[in-house]
């Protein structure tokens, strides 16, 4: 029988707990969330009827700080999925070494079936139901599937009204000008490249002149490409993108390095990169999977999950030194077994794409000070935080002689356990 999402993350935790030889007490504390709230949110709809929405908020663990995690609006959201994601947030915040715990929430709704006014009433209604259990020192939600920065602004406004004071720190992902932080659009992609840089340094490889191949051309992929070129002085020799017109993916490669701005400029009305213009500019057009087999130093899967499988892992070039998981779950367990035995240095997703949650933490800090940093200051601090997180995981991997993915989870769990011990919970 297939395991549910929460059962899967519990199993993953159990394996890490065995590796760390955790006490039964610690396991009991961490296998299940500390608090789960089931909400019922009454909302007056535009037609005058009353609809009561179901919602959940799970605070998995707050030993290291307030719970942190997004709010999902989805018609098929379940408590099981929210529990799983809350636990993963505990580990993600701990790996990044930000003083936050793990949380997640959901409301069972398809947000696009609501009018703008109904969305606002639902967001405010959510806060009205849960305001006593959230706050900058308690639980700090953020946008997630189906929620947006506008919704965060409404929620912040509602909370501020209820508590009687301006409280931007109650929630992150807010728009700029109402407590949002500069630098967040590029944070995840930039963070990926910081992790790559540190991995290259660890391997004794000069980042300047290194080559990369990237799957995807969305937000994270684009900022990863730009940062790889501008920050590392490296070359991105290939990106793979989906062509809506041709209904297939293509890899666009150029030996001297692709130009992400140029590729954006030649995207036509169908969202397809103009292949003729690309060819005229010296690009080679190959099939969509070609990115994976490029002779490069760094591979960055930044599109969807499950692309590096037990089969496709063998297409990776022997030249590849670093695999940076910018997407969530791009490597299957079967492929992981192969990679763990190879010479390829894997930066696991939980570490590699944590730039976004680190930037959320920065937003909270700025809200607390009521002083806002420039994008450059945010990036400088993000660079320091990502580098530090990387080296902590690396040290664990070396000390315990384990694979980087295992090390990331081990350090995360270990940090949470230490916090619980320090606080006298264990």
């Amino acid at each position, binding site marked *: 029988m297939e395991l549910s999402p929460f059962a899967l993350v519990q199993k993953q935790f159990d394996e890490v707990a065995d590796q760390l030889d955790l006490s039964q007490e610690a396991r009991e504390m961490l296998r299940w969330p500390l608090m789960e709230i089931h909400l019922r949110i009454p909302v007056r709809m535009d037609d005058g009827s009353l609809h009561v929405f179901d919602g959940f908020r799970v605070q998995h663990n707050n030993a290291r700080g307030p719970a942190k995690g997004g709010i999902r609006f989805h018609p098929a959201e379940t408590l099981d999925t929210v529990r799983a994601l809350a636990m993963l947030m505990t580990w993600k915040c701990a790996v990044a070494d930000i003083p936050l715990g793990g949380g997640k929430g959901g409301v069972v709704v398809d947000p696009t079936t*609501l009018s*703008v006014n109904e969305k606002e009433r639902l967001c405010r209604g959510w806060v009205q139901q849960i305001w006593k259990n959230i706050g900058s020192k308690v639980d700090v939600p953020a946008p997630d599937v189906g929620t947006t920065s506008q919704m965060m602004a409404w929620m912040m406004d509602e909370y501020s009204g209820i508590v009687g004071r301006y409280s931007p720190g109650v929630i992150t992902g807010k728009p700029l000008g109402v407590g949002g932080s500069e630098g*967040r659009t590029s944070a995840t992609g930039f963070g990926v490249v910081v992790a790559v840089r540190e991995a290259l340094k660890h391997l004794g490889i000069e980042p300047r002149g290194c080559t990369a191949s990237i799957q995807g051309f969305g*937000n994270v992929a684009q900022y990863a490409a730009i940062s790889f070129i501008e920050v590392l002085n490296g070359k991105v020799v290939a990106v793979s993108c989906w062509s809506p017109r041709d*209904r297939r993916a293509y890899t666009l490669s150029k030996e001297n390095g692709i130009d992400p701005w140029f590729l954006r400029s030649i995207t036509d009305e169908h*969202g397809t990169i103009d292949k003729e213009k690309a060819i005229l500019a010296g690009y080679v057009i190959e099939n969509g999977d070609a990115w994976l087999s490029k002779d490069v130093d760094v591979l960055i899967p930044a599109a*969807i*999950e499950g692309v590096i499988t037990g089969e496709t892992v063998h297409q990776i070039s022997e030249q590849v030194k670093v695999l940076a998981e910018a997407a969530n779950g791009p490597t299957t367990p079967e492929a992981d077994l192969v990679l763990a035995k190879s010479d390829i240095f894997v930066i696991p997703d939980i570490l590699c794409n944590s*730039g976004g949650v680190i*930037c959320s933490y920065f937003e909270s800090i700025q809200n607390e000070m009521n002083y806002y940093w420039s994008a450059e200051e945010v990036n400088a601090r993000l660079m320091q935080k990502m580098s530090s997180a990387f080296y902590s995981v690396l040290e664990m991997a070396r000390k315990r002689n384990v694979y980087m993915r295992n090390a990331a989870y081990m350090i995360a769990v270990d940090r949470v356990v230490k916090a619980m011990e320090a606080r006298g919970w264990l």
Partner: protein
Amino acid sequence: MSMEVTEEILSTFDTANIENMIEYALGFSTQKMGYAGQEQVVEALQHGNCSVCEYMRYGLAQKIAEYLGSVDNTVKAVYIYEPEYATAVDGAMPDELSFSRGIHMIAWVGRKTAALLSLIDVLGSNLAQKFKQLGCPKANALCYQLVVHIVDDEEVLTRTGYGALVDSFYVRPIEIWRR
């Protein structure tokens, strides 16, 4: 899939399908925005109102899903999804209302056919032209794209390629049509 079947499926398409889809999406957006009439939707689009565009895209997606299901009886379910959720959840959200421009969908079919792929191509081209005519000063080429990934039973079962997204707990597509 024979040429005759391909032509038969393609022959079900005419521009009236597109007109109906746009009409539905305008009505859907009018209702959701609380406007008095569709002309307000068009005006809002022409002022670059992304809230309205989001509703337009969803309304179009609903009708596209219904249409695909009606012309190809191997279509089992159709989903709409946000590609950026594969990488960028946990806080790194842009200021705009939604990440990706265009309409991104997954069609789960019993059997992939060239006919369905051809139909989506024709649908996408025609829809982009009509949608673009509504006008938006902020729109770029990507705003009018229709991306439909076709996945079959094996891909969903083995979580291969876009089949992995159907039950992904990161991306969380929304089912908008089921047979």
